Every structure is written in C-alpha cells, then in structure tokens.
C-alpha cells in the first residue's frame, strides 16, 4: 500500500476533519440526535481496523523506535473529533448508548495494542470518558480489560497498551465504593499480582504499583495477601525487577497500618534481608534505602524485637564482606541505627552470631576431615585389591609357564 498516493484527496479529507473538530468545539447545539448515528459510524469506519503485523518481530519497547501509524494525519483528527464529541456539554449518553455499545467498546479496546504511542494516548482519554459517562458499560469494560490482561500474562506476553489500561484502572479503583466487591478483590489477586511476573514489567510498573497501592488504601485488610503474593513472585534472577519490587514494597509500607505490618513483618524482612546481602549493588542499595524512610523506621522500631534477629546476620556479614564500599557504608549506618534502637538486643545478637559462626566453622572442619579419611580409605582398599590381583596373576602366569 502506497502511503503517498492520492495526496489531493487526502488533503481534502484532512481539511474537512479539521473543520469538523473546530465546529464541534466552538458551537453549541450542533450535536443533534439525528447526527449521533452518523458520527459514530464515521468514527468506527476510520479507526476500527485490524492492526498490521509488526514490521519488527523482535520489537523491544524500551530500545526500538515504534512503528508509527501511516494514516496518523487523519486518525489523529478523528480521535480529536471523538473527544470533543464526548466532552461536549450537549453530549447525551442516553442517546449515544444506542451506538456506543459493547461491540464498539470491544473494538476500541483491541486498538490499545497499537504500536503508535500517540494513538494509545488518545485511546486512554477516550476510554476514560466513556467509562465515566456510560454507567451501563462499566462492568463490561472491566471484564474485557480483565480478559486482555489474563491473555497478556498467561498466553502471549505481548500487548502494547498495558500501561495505558492500568492508568485508567488506577482512577477506576480510586472510585470504588466500600466495601469492595468480591469481583474487585479477585481482580487484584488473580490479575494484578500475577502481572508482576511479566517480562516487560519495566514498561508499566509505575502504573501497576499505583493500582496496587490504591487497592490497599481502599481496604487495608488486603495488605497481607498482597504482600504474600509479591513475595511469592519475587524475582529470583532479574535484578532490575527486584529493584522495582523493592520500590513497590516501600510504597506499600508508606501507607501500611501498624496492625497489618505486624502480620507480614517476618516473611517480608526475611526477603529484605536477602536483598540487602545481594551481590548486585543496586538491589542492596535499594533495600538499604528503606532505612531513610521515617515511617518505616518508626515501624521497625516498634517491632525491633522481631525484626532485628532476622536482619542481623546478613547485615553483619555484609559489613565485613561486600565488594562495594558504598554498600558497606550504608550498612554501617543501618547497623548504627538499629543499635540505637535496642542496644541490649543488638549485643546479644552479636555474641550469639559469633558463637554461631564458631560452631559452623567447626562443622566445616569436621566435614573436610571426614572426606579426607574417605579418600585414604578408598586408596588403601584399591591397593589391597590390586595386590591380591597381582598375586592371582602371578599364580596364573606361573602355572601357564609350566
């Protein structure tokens, strides 16, 4: 398909669309009931299309340039027009709902897979307005987004519009009424939490974390399942993701209630202890930065008797062994802070740690001794057998020589 053919006609169309946008924005009383059907038809005809296959099959959204839509000069104006139409004070959802129905919304959602970020941006705003004005479509929209995400997580790992959809969801969640419906809680646990496992998390993590925190602000009893869920999916080999997860944990801790904190402090700090001793300095640093957060510090102080034993061993070890001097400095500061919180406990842990290390060293030595003994035993046995074989052999050769 040639994008530079028919230039004259394309220019005429562009000018007309421009006129339409102007007209609708500046005049009142122009959106009459008889026009709705044609307006929606025009919009559908222009934007609803099967998205072409990607030119670059190994498209990496972070690195590569996206393939932009060739007909953007027209499509952009159509989207503009659509938005002005929806936002116009004369717009009446009761009439429009005959035309902007489930089929329309379904096709709109499919367009979110477009590679062109400008289109996705428009779609985001359009969907947001539709969700706001058409109460009857809300459940359907949520369900379809559900399906898109589930397919993304479990089947294809590919969808360009995840971040935009999550942004819309953020404001939807913000508007949830309390108590939260079971459907919403299920969405959180079965869709949003597993979405953390996606390979391209970096592209939409900010929006995802925002959604999660919004949920927790609505209903604090969700804290425990959420944190346990995140711990379950904690990245084991991707350090970049670990840093993101730590960021999200800090955001959650920022709004956590002290009672909820008590429920998850042990498993959480076990994970933080591992992060702190990670050999990847960014992960260790991010985990140690928790100690710069006033609120977290106060939570730790309140629960120091539970937390310090968990953290102590790894902190102590790193202060002696980590390769990165910045980390070592940070660790010293953290140790100092903890010591100031509860000096006695700190001392007890120090001495028991030392005793523990001695015990471990002794065990190591014993094990090595055992292996050495086994080697010698094997050698002895082998020689014995060989000697007996030689004896047999010489007996045989003597007999044959005779």
């Amino acid at each position, binding site marked *: 398909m040639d994008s530079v053919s028919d230039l004259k006609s394309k220019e005429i169309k562009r000018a007309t669309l421009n006129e339409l946008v102007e007209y609708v924005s500046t005049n009142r009383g122009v959106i009459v009931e008889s026009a709705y059907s044609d307006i929606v038809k025009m919009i559908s005809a222009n934007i609803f299309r099967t998205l072409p296959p990607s030119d670059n099959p190994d498209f990496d959204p972070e690195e590569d340039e996206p393939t932009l839509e060739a007909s953007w000069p027209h499509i952009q104006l159509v989207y503009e027009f659509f938005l002005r139409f929806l936002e116009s004070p004369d717009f009446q959802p009761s009439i429009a709902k005959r035309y902007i129905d489930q089929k329309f919304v379904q096709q709109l959602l499919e367009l979110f897979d477009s590679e062109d970020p400008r289109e996705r941006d428009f779609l985001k705003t359009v969907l947001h307005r539709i969700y706001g004005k058409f109460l009857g479509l809300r459940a359907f929209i949520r369900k379809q987004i559900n399906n898109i995400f589930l397919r993304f997580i479990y089947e294809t790992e590919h969808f360009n519009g995840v971040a935009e959809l999550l942004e819309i969801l953020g404001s939807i969640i913000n508007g949830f009424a309390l108590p939260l419906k079971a459907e919403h809680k299920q969405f959180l646990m079965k869709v949003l939490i597993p979405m953390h496992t996606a390979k391209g998390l970096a592209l939409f993590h900010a929006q995802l974390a925002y959604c999660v925190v919004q949920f927790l602000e609505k209903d604090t009893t969700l804290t425990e399942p959420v944190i346990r869920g995140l711990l379950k999916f904690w990245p084991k080999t991707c350090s970049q993701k670990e840093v993101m997860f730590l960021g999200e944990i800090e955001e959650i801790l920022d709004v956590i209630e002290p009672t909820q904190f008590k429920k998850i402090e042990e498993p959480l700090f076990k994970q933080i202890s591992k992060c702190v001793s990670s050999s990847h300095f960014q992960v260790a640093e991010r985990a140690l930065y928790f100690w710069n957060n006033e609120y977290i510090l106060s939570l730790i102080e309140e629960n120091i008797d539970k937390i310090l034993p968990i953290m102590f061993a790894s902190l102590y070890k790193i202060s002696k062994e980590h390769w990165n001097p910045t980390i070592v400095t940070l660790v010293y500061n953290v140790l100092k802070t903890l010591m100031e919180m509860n000096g006695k406990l700190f001392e007890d842990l120090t001495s028991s740690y030392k005793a523990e290390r001695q015990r471990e060293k002794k065990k190591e030595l014993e094990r090595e001794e055992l292996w050495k003994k086994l080697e010698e035993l094997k050698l002895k046995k082998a020689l014995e057998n060989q000697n007996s*074989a030689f004896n047999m052999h010489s007996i045989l050769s003597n007999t044959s020589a005779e």
Partner: protein
Amino acid sequence: MAGAAAPGTGLGAAGGDGDDSLYPIAVLIDELRNEDVQPPLESLATVEETVVRDRAVESLRQISQEHTPVALEVHFVPLVKRLASGDWFTSRTSACGLFSVCYPRASNAVKEEIRQHFRSLCSDDTPMVRRAAASKLGEFAKVLELDSVKSEIVPLFTNLASDEQDSVRLLAVEACVSIAQLLSQDDLEALVMPTLRQAAEDKSWRVRYMVADKFSELQKAVGPKITLNDLIPAFQNLLKDCEAEVRAAAAHKVKELCENLPIEGRETIIMNQILPYIKELVSDMNQHVKSALASVIMGLSTILGKENTIEHLLPLFLAQLKDECPEVRLNIISNLDCVNEVIGIRQLSQSLLPAIVELAKDAKWRVRLAIIEYMPLLAGQLGVEFFDEKLNSLCMAWLVDHVYAIREAATNNLMKLVQKFGTEWAQNTIVPKVLVMADDPNYLHRMTTLFCINALSEACGQEITTKQMLPIVLKMAGDQVANVRFNVAKSLQKIGPILDTNALQGEVRPVLQKLGQDEDMDVKYFAQEAISVMAQRLRKLDLPVKDSEELSAPRADKNHFLSPTVPGDNTRKGPAYQLHVNTRDKLAQLELAERVHFPQSRD
C-alpha cells in the same frame, strides 16, 4: 504409574530413624489406582500457570486410556464435568482437552451430556475458553458419529469462525481441516465451504495467514473439484493480499499446491491461473515474500516440463538470481538440482556465475558459508573445465577468509571436490596452491595448510601424501608459533594411517620425538598423543617401542594392561610392573589400579 521403591534396604539401612516412614508410602504407590491419582491432577488442572495445566491435562488423558469403560463413567466423566462447570476460566479451558478421550467409550446418555458441555464451552463468555474449545474442535469431531458432526459440530464451527475475536477465528480454520476430512463432497460444499470462503477473505490478516498456512492440508481435505472451483481463486487472492505476511505464507505453498493438483490438466491450470500471480510476486516489495517464492519456485520446473520451463520459468529464475536480497539468490541456488533434471543448468550458468561470485564475497559470513555448501553440487553439474576456469580462485580465496567457520567449510569443500574430480586433478590444481600457503606470514593461513592436508590426504592417497605433503608438514614442525607446531603433531597423527611404515619410522618418529621435548605444554601433549597412536600401529608390525613413552600419555590403552602375558614377550609387562614404575602422583596410581581391578568386585 510410579514404581515402588525397594522396601527397606537402602532407606532403612542409611538413616535408621525416620526413613522407614517412606516404606508404607512406597508400597502404596504400587497399589494406587487410576482414580486415586485423579484428584491431585484435577486441582493441578485449574492452576493459573499454563504449563502446569497442560501437563496435568496430558496426564489425565493418559489415565483415561487405562480406565475400563465402567470406571470411565464412574470416575473420569464426573471429573470432566466438574472442570467444565468450574467458575474460574482455567478449569474450563482444561476441560476442553478431555472431551475427546472420554467420548468414544461412554454410553449414549453420557455422550449426549459430553456434547452438551462442549457446546456450552464453545460459546463461553471468556475468549480463553472459546480459544481452547476451538483448538480442540477438530480432535473432538474426529471421535464423533457422522450425524453428530453434521448436526452439532458444523454449527459450532460456523459460530467460532465468525467469533468477534480473530484469535478464535483463526483456530477455527485449523479445525476446518479435520472437519473437512470427515464429510462427503456434497456435505462439504453445503456446510463447510461458505465458512472457508469467508475465512479466506477475513478482515483480519491473521485469519487469512492461517488459511494460507494450512492451504495444502485444506486442498487435500476438500478434494480436486472444490479445489478447482473455490480454493484456487482463494489462493490467487492470498497471493496478492495486502499484507506481506500473508503473501509470503501463500508463496511458500505454491509448489505443494501445484504438486497436489490432479495430473490431468494441471499444466493448464498452473499456466493460466497460478503463473501470472507468481510473476507479480517476483518483483514484490517485501524481501520475505520474494525469498519464500525463491525457495519453492524451482520445484515447478519438474511439474511443467522442459518447454514451459524454458519459456516461462527461466526468466523468473534469472530475475531472482539478480535480486538485491542475498537470501533470495541463495534460495534459488540451493534448489538448482530440480532445474538440472529438467533442462540442465547450462542455460543458467551465464547468470549463475555473477550471482555466485557476489554471494561468495557477501559481507555476512553466513551467506558466504551457504554458498560454500553448494559448491560441490555446482561443480559437479557445471563440470571440471568450467570450475577450473571460474570457480577455482573463489575456493582458494575462501581458505584465507577472516572467519574461521568459512576456512573450515572451505577445507571440507576441497575434500569433496577431490572426491568428485579425482586425485590427478587434485595433484595438478589444488595441492600446489595449498602447499604454497605453508610459507604465508600469517600463522592462521599456515595452519589452514595443515587442515587441508588433514582433509585431503585420504582422498589423495599414499603417494601424493608421502611425496608432496609430508615434507611440508615436517618442515612446519620448526615453526615459531606453537599453535602451528602442535597442529603438526595432530596432522601427523591424522595422516599416519595413510603413510607407509618406512616413512613413519624414518621421518615421522624423529620429528614427533623432538616435538615431545618442546617447551610448550600443548605441543608436548599432542606430540605424545601422536607417538602413542603411532607406536600402536608400529607394534602391530612387531617393531620395538620404548614403554616410557606410553605411560606419559594420560589416556593409556586399557586393553594393554588386561591382555594376557605371553612368555618371552618383552614388550608386554605385567600390571604390577607398570604400577611400580610410574607412581608419580596418587591419582595416576588410582587410575591404573582401577584398570587392574577385576570388574566384578567393584563395590
């Protein structure tokens, strides 16, 4: 089912305290029945992770085969029904994979229920479930009675093929093949073809792509008459589809399509209805399309025969040989043998040569590598004079390419050429040029000489090897680069079997021994390897060899130790002697001791 662990022995002996608790479980595993294993599999079939679910479904399918028909209805079918009515979509998707295995042996009433469940899953709310149902539709149709296929499956198929999600529609196309195989021609025309026609013109390129991809299967399933009336026009449209992916998929199928047409009249069909479209594709804008076409177009020459090939196909081949995309040119060259059968490639040789020469110098090494692979074939077809005149210099140039993989392939290439053209040709044309490289200032090129000698010695025979190659190899033993020296040792080992014993004794052995004293570790090692191999060969001819040379080689011959002693034979010392002589380190001792050990008493 899992086998039972040996009760007690290893387990009880080792731990003593809690390990015996494994014993009852071990026995139970043996006694487990199929139905006992089902519950855990059922819950695994509902988890989120697709890999886990798929394996659980696989296992359940296997179990179903082991049930008796009665047990099937009592234990298995209820499980399937529970999964099919589960409220989270995961269990429903798993259920889709289980219908076809329990249907055949169920009673009629149960069969009705199973069909009912499948119907409802095909119109499930969640697209994931509909996708799963669509992908299993063909399999399910195969186990159904023909009436049910017509009355129930076909409507389901039609619905899924017009689903609003294209991911569901394209799976229906796959099912189409299976369904078409079950129906008669009349039924096909009435029930399936309308849907298929629709799919070939679907607004989503993915569905059209699927039609193109499955074209050969569809062709076979619908039979020649419908192919002629419906499929060929559809194929024409796919060949000029607006999406390159679809055109490429269709182009891939051109040869198969033509081959599967009925022999009578197929020439006319191809000439009139397919060829015009193919001509367009040769100048397509997208390189994948052209490349796909190039890989199959040559195959048409055998179908169309000599005259048509010369008049119509030859211009296309030539055009593609000059294409700017190297992959297209390569695909043409790789399929030359089809054309050779029909018209001989002399016709092409004019255009072939520039194409080959350009590909041989392509910037991408993989392209160069591909051309080298075809060189023996081309040489054989073009003949020795043409080769010497035009292609010989190319082959030599490859020997000094920057990329090792090219040099290696070029060496193999030479070996194959010698096999084709004979030793005299080799002696006159190849060998002198190869041996000249031994004086090249670049050590990599000198090593290439050795690799060539390795490859060529067998094909060239003893005389050439001894008289011409061996002196060069021996000379290089004094090279200043260690890599060259140890490759000399390796070469001598390789060509040893071809040389005669005089050469071995007189010329090779002294050189190897000197290399065995080299200051470089690797040179020493390879030299000693070569010596021990050579010593073996010489021993077979009853020539004296020093023992100490053998022991230093780490991989000493096992048989040597275990062979019975013959009185009076000095060369075969008893095992004990070996042991005492060289006990440098315990490890070697242990190794030797193990070899002396009688196998049965190993614990």
